[in-house]
């Protein structure tokens, strides 16, 4: 805590409380304790929440001047002494108490003014709004709760110039932020500035001028208090819940324009109690650690030091920064591109005759690379194209392209890079006339003549990614910047860098072992049709649909904490070899509707994973061959088990635990943790032909790793063997290792 701020705030609070007390005593003498107080706005709309801040935080119903006496006694007791010159303390508690006392003092002063008929304020013919009425509070409150309106910005003082004032207000409006105005600096107020520029103020324009002094800032907190009482299901007097409600649900902040005096510091301390951070466009001490507010408490952004070619750009950046610091998320309603966008276009094929231009594919070079950056390293929404664009491409031609997506976010993690990067495929495919295949450096993008005719250019790929990353991954992404390189030299240079990163990621994935983590993830996405099925996903086994890896699940949990991917703490080891843990057993028991009591990660024969309906492959033991066979979903032929894939699925699917049979993802076959209890890959005696082809490289590697480099040739497949009778002679002829292994049953 800054000693300077603490001292100023406490001094400000002391004088506010003194002023309030004096005003109250005078009014009591003059008007008597029974004089009624009722908050109303300039059109006469009132509130049923008495003096709302006092009512919410203290539970006291103030209806008359006399009711304010105990409130002031309480406020006085809260004000701490001003810190002595040579004594340094953390001060935070004292400052927050001073802030609370200031709020009671401010509301008392406004209460006395109402009793005297001096509120809402009128000044030089201008009618200030005074406190917001309940009907308006409800209407805005609903929008704040359902997310249409993030919160409010309380602007205190006056901006550098009239045009800056207007720019700040317009920028805030464009983000759906409510705007409250009060106070002056150097005798000027932002209310004057907007008035001079002819800006309409009032409920209709979402700009509410409270009053000409700092004291009227209390109406902002009265609004926040009522929102919490009304929408938070909170009892008056439960101050802790009210403050927490606002901290987490109302994305409000204070922006002090111009010099900050003691009274403003005191009011700021009051706002911080609500979790509302305070930003200033002048030099004041920063309070960067987080705690009472979600992120930084006080941030100084001296206006003239902000980057920007002129004051308007500086104003835009100032608002952008405030929004970021408060953690306000951006939603983009419509992807801003000249062609239609939606899931209906995902499967489109762009044929040769319709091809306008393509990137990558056979003999081409196209790659995509998503990088995590620091928040201040990138600019949200910045999209750059470096190199030639559509207008210089010949029809049907092929060009190199690099898509670099830089994202930053407070909850972003390096490990989420590949998870987000893989979404580029799905996102770009949604555009009409754009087809995307592959990933990383085997990306292949084809664009239809019609899309180009409608005005689609390279930058629109950036627009798509910017919008979709925010909309789909707003929980972890705060800023997205996209750079598209079509300059061949640049692409060639960058692809090397990207490949080095892909390699690094592969190594990281390889190093990500079951032993290296203490938490697995669940997937219950399929419970709608397999009610008792739970996938437990460990780093070395993907979900049985092949679509969810352990990292995907972790990211999915960050994005949607109530979603289908939940952390499963391993807990106490029951059997290391079998891969049985207490935590996993408990989780599976609870989430399988208490049907599955035991669950092992490493065995096919002893309590294996259940199977839903969407596994990529099914494995089944062939007792005669002392091994297992694996058939893939794409294989329609007969297998040595005497069943096709479909028949096997009918046996194993639907959430059943069937020792000796199990659904799994394709890539699991090459995992180091492929049924280790039964002896791993050496047990495979038969494998669908298409799997052999598709996984050729990975299988080769896995077989070499297990010390059986020629194993693939010893595995039968559908092209030669479809019955057990054919299988045994085949295995004997090839000398398959399974025949001499321990009995599988």
């Amino acid at each position, binding site marked *: 805590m800054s000693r300077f701020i603490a001292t100023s705030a406490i001094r400000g609070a002391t004088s506010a409380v003194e002023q309030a007390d004096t005003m109250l005593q005078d009014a009591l003498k003059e008007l008597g304790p029974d004089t009624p107080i009722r908050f109303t706005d300039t059109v006469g709309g009132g509130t049923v929440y008495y003096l709302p801040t006092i009512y919410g935080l203290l539970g006291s119903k103030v209806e008359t001047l006399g009711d304010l006496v105990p409130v002031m006694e309480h406020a006085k007791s809260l004000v701490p002494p001003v810190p002595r010159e040579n004594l340094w303390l953390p001060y935070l508690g004292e400052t927050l108490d001073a802030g609370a006392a200031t709020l009671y003092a401010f509301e008392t002063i406004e209460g006395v003014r109402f009793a005297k008929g001096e509120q809402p304020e009128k000044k030089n013919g201008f009618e200030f709004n005074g406190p917001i009425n309940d009907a308006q509070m*409800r209407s805005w*409150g*609903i929008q704040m*709760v*359902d*997310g249409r309106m993030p919160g409010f910005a309380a602007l205190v003082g006056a901006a550098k110039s009239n045009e800056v004032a207007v720019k700040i207000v317009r920028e805030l409006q464009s983000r759906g932020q409510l705007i409250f105005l009060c106070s002056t600096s150097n005798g000027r107020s932002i209310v004057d500035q907007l008035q001079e520029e002819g800006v309409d103020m009032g409920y209709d324009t979402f700009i509410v001028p409270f009053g000409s002094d700092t004291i009227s800032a209390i109406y902002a907190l009265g609004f926040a208090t009522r929102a919490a009482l*009304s*929408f*938070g*299901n909170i009892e008056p007097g439960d101050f802790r819940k009210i403050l927490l*409600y606002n901290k987490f649900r109302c994305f409000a902040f204070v922006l002090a324009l111009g010099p900050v005096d003691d009274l403003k510091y005191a009011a700021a301390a009051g706002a911080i109690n609500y979790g509302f951070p305070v930003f200033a466009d002048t030099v004041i001490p920063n309070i960067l650690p987080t705690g009472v507010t979600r992120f930084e408490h006080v941030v100084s952004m001296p206006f003239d030091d902000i980057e920007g070619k002129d004051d308007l750009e500086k104003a835009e950046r100032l608002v952008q920064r405030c929004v970021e610091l408060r953690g306000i998320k951006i939603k983009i309603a419509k992807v801003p591109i000249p062609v239609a966008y939606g899931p209906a276009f995902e499967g489109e094929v762009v044929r040769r005759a319709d091809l306008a231009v393509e990137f990558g594919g056979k003999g081409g070079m196209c790659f995509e690379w998503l990088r995590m950056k620091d928040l201040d390293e990138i600019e949200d929404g910045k999209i750059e194209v470096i190199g030639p664009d559509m207008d210089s491409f010949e029809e049907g031609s092929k060009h190199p392209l690099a898509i670099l997506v830089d994202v930053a976010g407070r909850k972003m993690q390096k490990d989420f890079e590949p998870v987000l990067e893989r979404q580029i495929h799905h996102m770009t495919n949604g555009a009409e006339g754009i087809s995307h295949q592959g990933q990383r450096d085997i990306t292949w993008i084809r664009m239809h003549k019609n899309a180009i005719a409608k005005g689609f250019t390279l930058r629109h790929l950036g627009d798509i990614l910017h919008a979709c990353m925010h909309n789909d991954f707003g929980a972890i992404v705060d800023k997205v910047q996209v750079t598209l390189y079509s300059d061949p030299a640049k692409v060639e240079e960058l692809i090397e860098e990207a490949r080095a990163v892909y390699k690094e990621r592969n190594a990281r994935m390889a190093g990500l072992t079951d032993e290296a983590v203490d938490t697995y993830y669940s997937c*219950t*996405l399929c*419970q*709608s049709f397999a*009610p008792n099925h739970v996938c437990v996903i460990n780093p070395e086994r993907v979900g049985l649909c092949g679509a969810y890896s352990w990292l995907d699940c972790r990211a999915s949990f960050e994005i949607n904490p*109530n*979603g*289908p991917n939940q952390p499963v703490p391993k807990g106490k080891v029951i059997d290391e070899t079998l891969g049985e843990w207490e935590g996993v057993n408990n989780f599976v028991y609870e989430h399988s*509707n*208490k049907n599955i009591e035991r669950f092992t990660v490493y065995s096919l024969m002893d309590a294996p994973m259940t199977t839903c309906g969407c596994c990529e492959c099914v494995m089944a033991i062939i007792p005669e061959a002392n091994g297992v066979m694996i058939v893939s979903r794409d294989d329609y032929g007969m297998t040595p088990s005497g069943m096709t894939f479909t028949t096997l699925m009918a046996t194993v699917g639907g959430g059943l635990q069937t020792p000796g049979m199990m659904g799994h993802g394709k890539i699991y076959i090459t995992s180091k943790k492929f049924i280790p209890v039964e002896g791993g890959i050496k047990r495979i005696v038969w494998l669908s032909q298409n799997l052999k082809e598709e996984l050729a490289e990975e299988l080769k590697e896995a077989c070499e790793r297990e010390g059986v480099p020629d194993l693939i040739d010893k595995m039968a497949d559908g092209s030669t063997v479809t019955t057990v009778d054919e299988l045994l002679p085949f295995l004997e002829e090839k000398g398959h290792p399974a025949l001499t292994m321990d009995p599988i049953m």
Partner: protein
Amino acid sequence: MPDVEIPLEKWTGKVKEVKIGGGGRKEVVVGGESTLPFLAFESSNPNPPKIAIEVHDKEPTTWAAPLLSAWGDAVKDPGTWAKKAVEFGADLICLKLLSAHPEGGNTGPAEAKASVEKVLSAVDLPLIILGPGVAEKDNEVITAASDAAKGQRVALGNCEEKNYRTIGAVCLSDGHIAIAKTPLDINLCKQLNIMLSDMGVPADSIIMDPDTGALGYGIEYGYSINERVRLAALGGDAMTAFPILNHAGGEVWRQKEARASDGVPDAWGDLEERSIIWEAVTATSVINAGCDIVVMCHPKAIERIKSTIEKLTGK
């Protein structure tokens, strides 16, 4: 006959009780079950299923003949309709603001408010108020309806994944009950309940509509989802322990079996009797699977289901 000990299931969970109405209006309490439906020997389920009768804010133009003849001119005005629903034995009124549908009149908040006020002043039964089922319009008209019914604790819906926040917010603000609707999926159902709870909607202010199909059109899904949700609740899962609402009437009366008299096999029999049976069987199925409020349309089907409930509860 030898003494047979009847095995009793011991459940740890209990469904929350939700009170609809009040503020001068009759009160109806639903939920509170501590065992499966109608197993009086096992545990007491204090509140038998209730019947809500469907009332629309505009005259139905595509209703089946048996419904139109049963209701007559009452359907021309929501207030008159609601009064007649009371005569037909409704425990609650389910007011559907269908005129707000963009393709069905596209009326706004003012009309919604007027319809709600009409029904509120016509009858003293508790109310369920539903929008036209288009998220944006639902938000608009339910916000107005909520305001009009402030203090009378109505149930508002539907909160769906897309728009639960707005309706949740007005329920919080005006002290109403949120109806959480999900499409036949226990996980989505639970997830929506969690999200509403996270918003601060209290546990005694949530009713779930896990969806159902009519007899012959997926009743088995409706039955099974109700049963699974209820088993989870009784098993101790607080996030599924809310009362269940099903639209038996609305589902049945869309189907051919409740509408067609020409060009169907003779064996189908008389349209009126057939359609009434169709609705009664659908409603019987869902209440046997745990439904607490069944929304219905035909007076005769309602009569039959009420008698069924009486027999099953021994009252």
